[in-house]
């Protein structure tokens, strides 16, 4: 901070000033607990699994992290804004299905499907937000409802249109190659194939971080999550901010949906159910406060990285992958407890 060094100019009574040490500042970061957890986990898996240490494995871990991490960006911002979106998992599938069905059934360039899907998915996010704002019901309930509706519609519409539980392959449609290179290609870095989603993930996190900390809407996100009434009272457009946050989740869902579609060319209509909890776990492990008002996009990213490491690390360590969820649950407990401790300490010693 500028100016704190010119002590003589300050009026008396400033013996309280006691500058905050850099360490204390670091401790005040929401993602600190997650960062420590990630390092510990990384060291742990490196020690127990030889395969984990290979560059190719790391790239696989990063890929898994990125697909969850992209969603965790939107979900983290929404959580900082004080809300949940339980429809986030199936919305990814809805998004992919819309693009696949529209391009295939109407024999259009896949980019047309991509565009329609973007509009439809954003509209779904808008609807989530509007329902929340208008009904005043908890977002948990509103999005639980849209979760079931989307899950049902995914299956129902796909079966009605294709007579099958999966969409028809769009591999031979116009524009597939270019769409694939944008959403689902990989880049060779020093002999290791790194999925393009990893770079998109980093870009999403960077943009979200900038938005949160350096722009007015970011200020509003913290405010509506921390104290919505207070925010409203000083003129923050609370309803608009919340709706935009739901649309942010939808945007991430659209992106991931496009990735899945252009990776596999076809979409299984029953996919996505349950993933919404993984996204929420990433955000929470990353230090976002469940009750809103506190957290970071970087934290969500670290949460996703922890998720990816655990997911793949168990495989590389040749453990029974059935235990993955057990570990995830345990980690969730540890991470939230750790976050709580860190935050309390910082608040007390201000």
């Amino acid at each position, binding site marked *: *901070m*500028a*100016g704190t060094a010119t002590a003589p100019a*300050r*009026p008396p*009574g*400033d013996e*309280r*000033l*006691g500058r*905050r040490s850099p360490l204390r500042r670091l401790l005040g970061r929401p993602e600190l607990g997650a960062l420590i957890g990630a390092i510990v986990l990384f060291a742990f898996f490196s020690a127990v699994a030889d395969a984990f240490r290979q560059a190719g494995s790391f790239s696989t871990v990063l890929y898994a992290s990125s697909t969850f991490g992209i969603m965790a960006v939107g979900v983290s911002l929404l959580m900082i804004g004080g809300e949940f979106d339980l429809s986030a998992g199936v919305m990814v599938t809805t998004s992919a299905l819309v693009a696949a069905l529209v391009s295939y059934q109407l024999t259009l360039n896949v980019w047309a499907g991509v565009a329609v899907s973007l509009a439809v998915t954003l509209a779904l996010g808008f609807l989530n937000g509007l329902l929340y704002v208008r009904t005043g019901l908890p977002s948990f309930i509103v999005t639980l409802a849209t979760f079931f509706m989307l899950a049902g519609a995914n299956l129902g519409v796909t079966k009605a249109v294709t007579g099958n539980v999966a969409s028809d392959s769009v591999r031979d449609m116009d524009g597939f190659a270019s769409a694939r290179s944008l959403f689902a290609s990989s880049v060779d870095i020093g002999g290791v194939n790194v999925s393009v989603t990893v770079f998109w993930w980093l870009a999403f996190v960077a943009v979200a971080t900038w938005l949160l900390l*350096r*722009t*007015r809407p*970011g*200020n509003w996100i*913290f*405010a509506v999550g*921390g*104290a919505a*009434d*207070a*925010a*409203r*009272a*000083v*003129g*923050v*457009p609370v309803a608009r901010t919340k709706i935009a946050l739901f649309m942010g989740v939808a945007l991430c869902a659209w992106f991931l949906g496009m990735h899945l579609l252009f990776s596999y060319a076809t979409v299984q209509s029953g996919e996505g159910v349950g993933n919404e909890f993984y996204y929420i776990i990433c955000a929470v492990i990353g230090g976002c*406060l469940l009750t809103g*008002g*506190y957290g970071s996009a970087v934290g969500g990213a670290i949460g996703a990285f922890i998720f990816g490491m655990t997911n793949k690390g168990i495989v590389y360590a040749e453990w029974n992958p059935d235990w993955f969820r057990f570990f995830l649950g345990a980690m969730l407990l540890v991470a939230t407890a750790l976050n709580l401790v860190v935050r309390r300490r910082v*608040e007390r010693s*201000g």
Partner: protein
Amino acid sequence: MSALIGLAGVGKHYGNVIALRDVSLAVDAGQVVCVLGDNGAGKSTLIKIISGLHRPDAGTYEVAGEPVAFGSPREALDRGIATVYQDLAVVPLMPVWRNFFLGAELRRSFGRLDIAAMRRTTRDELAGMGIDLRDVDQPIGTLSGGERQCVAIARAVHFGARVLVLDEPTAALGVKQAGVVLRYVARARARGLGVVFITHNPHHAYPVGDRFLVLKRGRVLADRAKDAITRDELTALMAGGAELDELAAELSGTGTGTGADAG
């Protein structure tokens, strides 16, 4: 010249709870109007109407002689009516400077926040009020009640309020901190602001007030200029006169603790 704000015959109910009935009030520039009343008298409800959070169910609300029907606090703010709420309208986990500028953030090109300027302004404005914060980056929830109150008031004044509405700004404060706030209210009046000052405490109201409106169960019990009422009369009105005598009689045997701050 018409008053800065004027309410006439205002009423408000929540479901079947009648919170306010037939209340009138006018605030001129450079005038402090104190609204007093017991818990549940309707003080906060009145404030919420003035600040645009609620619309009255009956009566009229005028700003500078012009009828208004605010749809949000933002609209009231745009007309220069700034409110500091009992619960302070701050976001506890956010830094002091972000709270100070919340809803009116300074920006540079590309919508970037002008963080340096906001930090500086926050520190300067608060220093100007005699509040020297350790660190404008600390979460506002970690400040003392008095400090938080002063941040909230300084914020309203900084953003060009013409009418300052204060909902029990001294209720949670110690004697000295309350003095700081009262002095600040007097300073705001001297700058030509109109002030609506809500309080339980006639001892806080009397020194700074120019006019006193006493509410009871949502109705106006008294509406007097300062020269038409003494401090004791005001205190008696507040406590409900006879009730206070009764209380005094009741407590006379046991030894009393009525010297305590009524906040």
